[in-house]
């Protein structure tokens, strides 16, 4: 009896591994295909049947792709927008979250409910009036419309940080108050240092969203020298006449690379952020 049960368990485990490995391969094929195309010679891209591994590698495709458009400029533009957005989001969301997590006030619960409910509002409903506002301010075709809104706290991050702050014992605040620490002192000297991992999660998600944002730059940026990487990449198609897929894939890899690198170094924070929002939502 025991033997047959063991055999059954072994069989199940084997099936589990096979399914996991097959699905992993399916997930990885597009990435492999991206890399392989990026390294192919121009004519080899249009070979049928396609080669999995290029007959000869052409890493120079990356240089060709990057010099075809002023990618350096776009890289700097995207970095400026992303960096300032991260700074804005870190400051504003942590301040607001501190208020909600640590201070008592009438109407707090209702306000917090309002914060949460804004997460359900599709951005398309506010998009047009915000565009009109920025147009009146003469901010169209500048980076400001993409950066400034990040300085007013994001509902998602306020929620995430509040969850973290709630886990810190309130006695710490009380002790600090007795020592004459102000509310701002508690925020800066107790809460922030204790919740660095949470701040890292906020920084990473803000980075990803702004780095990859497409609709925002599409609406607000027009001048050739002000484009972001995503926007430039989307205009890349068809520029070579027949689409040069090897160069296009090379450029896509370069654009995605910072996110990849960030993921591999800070995977813990990615997972943490997703889990918290998913489980406590």
């Amino acid at each position, binding site marked *: 009896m025991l033997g047959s049960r063991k055999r059954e368990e072994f069989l199940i485990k084997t099936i589990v591994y096979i*399914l*996991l490995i097959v*699905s*992993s391969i399916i*997930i*990885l094929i*597009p990435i492999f*295909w*991206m890399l392989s195309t990026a390294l192919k010679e121009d004519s080899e*891209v*249009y070979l*049928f*049947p*396609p080669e999995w591994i290029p007959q000869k590698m052409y890493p120079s495709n990356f240089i060709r792709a990057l010099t075809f458009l002023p990618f350096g400029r776009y890289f700097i533009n995207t970095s400026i927008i992303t960096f300032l957005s991260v700074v804005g989001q870190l400051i*504003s969301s942590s301040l*607001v979250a*501190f*208020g909600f997590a640590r*201070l008592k*006030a*009438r109407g707090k619960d209702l306000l917090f409910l309002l914060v949460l409910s*804004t997460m*359900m*509002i*599709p951005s*398309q*409903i*506010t*998009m*047009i*009036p*915000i565009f009109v*506002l920025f*147009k009146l301010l003469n901010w169209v075709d500048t980076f400001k419309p993409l950066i400034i*809104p990040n300085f*007013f706290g994001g509902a998602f991050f*306020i929620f995430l940080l509040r969850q973290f702050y709630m886990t810190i014992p309130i006695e710490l605040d009380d002790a600090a108050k007795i020592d004459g620490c102000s*509310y701002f002192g508690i925020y800066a000297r107790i809460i922030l240092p204790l919740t660095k991992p949470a701040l890292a999660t906020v920084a990473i998600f803000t980075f*990803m969203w702004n780095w*990859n944002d*497409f*609709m925002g730059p599409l*609406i607000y940026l027009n001048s050739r020298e002000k484009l972001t990487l995503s*926007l430039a*990449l*989307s205009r890349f*198609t068809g520029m070579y006449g027949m689409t040069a*897929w090897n160069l296009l*894939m090379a450029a*896509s890899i370069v654009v995605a690379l910072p*996110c*990849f690198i960030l*993921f591999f170094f800070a*995977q813990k924070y990615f*997972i943490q952020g*997703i*889990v918290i929002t*998913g*489980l406590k*939502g």
Partner: protein
Amino acid sequence: MRTKMSPIARKEERYFYLFISPWIVGFVIFIAGPIIASLYFSFCNYDVVTSPVWIGLQNYKRLFLDPLFWQALKVTSYYSLLSVPLGIILSLIIAILLNQRIRGLVWFRTIYYIPSVISGVAVSLLWMWIFNPEFGILNFLLWKLFRIHGPAWLMSEEWVIPALIIMSFWGIGGDIVIYLAGLQGIPTELYEAAEIDGANSWKKFLNITIPMMSPILLFTLVMGIIGSFQVFTQAYVMTRGGPHYASLFYVLYIYQNAFQFFSMGYASALSWILFIIILLLTLLIFKSSPLWVYYESTKER
């Protein structure tokens, strides 16, 4: 609260509002104000250059007679109806497989999450190339493995939405991570007790896993539906709504009206309809949730 507040409590309250002031200002400027303005624009003829002209319900009347509005609604619902539930089922299956006390768990989880790291335009371009009917890898594999002549995918009215649905499955890594964490949080005693009662795997899945996971499933369902109604980048970059409006996603149509035809009034009316649809769907899901969502702590609350 009716008792008089102490000076300390009052000071604390003042500080509360000081700390959350960035959000209050942002809420007024970027959410509440724009929502009201958008409602007003939806009753106007507005091209941004000249000031809005009140035209009453005309935008909404036009909308009901606009075949492209119905097309956009159809396309988006079709996509949402398939990509969201199938995506949830797929991620749940993978999460359950990952939860079988396997080796290399972290590696597998990383692999499934990788596609979610690259998003937006780069992913759209990659899948355009994968779906390329002549030289793309997908049709090559279909032929090589199953001897099937693949369709023209993005260039086919019939296959463009299924193609985008397939593409959406590539990004289920986030859901897998959430489900895995949820599964790991289910107390093992529940399964052990069920085993003593002689429950088989299927019974355990149906009577323990699903109820325990239902709040998380509810959350991802709501977020998934909201997200699917807001698809834009793929449609703009990969198909521009084509061929022959077959992938005219709702938000793409809003974008075209607002920023290509400068019919801001009409676009506002369209976005209000979207808002109402999302609101109704969310409400419907929440209202039906007592029927299928199990909350462990309901009694304590």
